[in-house]
């Protein structure tokens, strides 16, 4: 009985250690910010898909691109490797997870708040699609509010903005332009 209890305790301790180590790796990975929107972490954006730690302490992080041509993937990878290295994980591998494709619905509540706090408009819910993608010949209708003055009187300037994930808007009340993170 004694032996069994000791083994069980040892196993429990090992499990606790593994959990703690994983949480350390997770915390480090979660602190890395997006190179193009540094007010958001990769976790807030939903780009950080998983963090695994092997028995030998090797970390494998999976990230997913927002858009296929996202030019910031290499920078994100380097930032993750560096931050994990400083946190004591010298052996870190960053994998790209293409599927499932990123959705703006994955941006966390904290991420949405950070966008708003920095004068950006957060994406609404992605419409659920069934059947073929419908063509839309009229400007996309979104219920938006100006992140500067809160007015709902806004107009779309362009569906394409300074980065692949943003559209351009203008507030017709305060006349300030602002960026809206697109639903995708």
């Amino acid at each position, binding site marked *: 009985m004694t032996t069994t209890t000791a083994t069980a305790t040892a196993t429990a301790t090992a499990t606790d250690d593994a959990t703690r180590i994983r949480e350390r790796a997770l915390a480090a990975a979660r602190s890395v910010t997006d190179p193009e929107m540094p007010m958001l972490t990769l976790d807030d954006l939903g780009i950080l898909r998983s963090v695994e730690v092997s028995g030998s302490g090797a970390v494998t992080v999976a990230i997913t691109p927002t*858009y296929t041509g996202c030019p910031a993937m290499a920078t994100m990878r380097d930032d993750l490797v560096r931050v994990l290295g*400083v946190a004591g994980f010298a052996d870190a591998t960053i994998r790209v997870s293409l599927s499932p*494709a990123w959705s703006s619905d994955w941006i966390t509540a904290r991420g949405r708040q950070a966008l708003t706090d920095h004068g950006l408009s957060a994406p609404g819910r992605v419409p659920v699609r069934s059947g073929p993608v419908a063509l839309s010949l009229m400007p996309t209708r979104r219920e938006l509010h100006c992140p500067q003055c809160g007015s709902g009187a806004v107009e779309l300037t*362009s569906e394409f903005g300074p980065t692949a994930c943003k559209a351009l808007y203008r507030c017709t009340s305060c006349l300030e332009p602002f960026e809206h993170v697109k639903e995708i």
Partner: protein
Amino acid sequence: MPDETAMPDELDAIQSVADDVVHQPSHPAPDPNDAHGSVYDGLLGGDPSHWAFGTDFEDPLAGVDTTMPEGVDAADLGTYCLMLADDALIASQRLSEWCSRAPDLEDDIALSNIALDLLGQARLLLARAAAADPSLVPALPEGSPVPAEDALAFFRDAGEFRNVRLVELDNGDFAVTIVKLLLHSSARIAIFEQLVDSRDHVLSAVAAKGIKELTYHRDYAGRWFLTLARGTEESRRRIDAALGQVSPLQAEMFATHAVEARVAAAGVGVDPATVADAVAVVLAQVFALSGVDQPTKAPLAAVQGRQGRDGMHTEALSRIVGEMQVVARAHPMGQW
């Protein structure tokens, strides 16, 4: 990742270390009186890695499950990936020609964004082509650091490109560009809607992601088509002329190549003929709303039975490929 998971207290210390790393300036704030200071100091928030932003070679498929599906010829899969990649690559390169010279800033940005999306699709597909059939990749001098995707983009001759001829056509005026984009994005989105069911994990993932991007491209082109068609007499004249010029190249996008037939039969690719009707329905909507007649010009003929998918192209391709490749070809060792 779970949303907003609470972090245990004992992790605060490690979190603050990580925070410090992220926010630590790599050099002091700029001092205008310091001869060694630079106006660019501080612009990048002090993260040292950002100085190397986007400059390194990178395998776009790093970490993706690249297992080859069974029951498909590797050479066929490689060639099929090249076809889809070359469509995107050449369309992207053409759209990039608008950068800094579009009719207004918003459209300059829009066309560049669309080009970037297509370039991203091309990179994944070229890397997939190289993995499926390494013999497709042109040989480079020993020790060259040029990755396979770049070797395929920059070291093949025009006759080895497998894109449909529509995408290589000169940009012409803005109306020609819009018509090309409308016809191409409509066909590509329809093909991708079937390609999501591919047994090849990479093709399936590229398609699922690509659909989201192409939705914006097609809407953009459709809205401009409508605007130009119902705008002024001059804009209408131009959209009619553009349609007359581009539409003869439309049929080729739905002509089944032998490779496409085989990969479709193997459950890996899509026979483009099967999406022709669905695309026609979408375009009929655009034409009807725009008050434009369906184009009736005869398709551009194949040359001795060969079209873009066979490597038979118009003269426009050799010129755009020459411009796209000149720097890479001058420096095959990737150094200058």
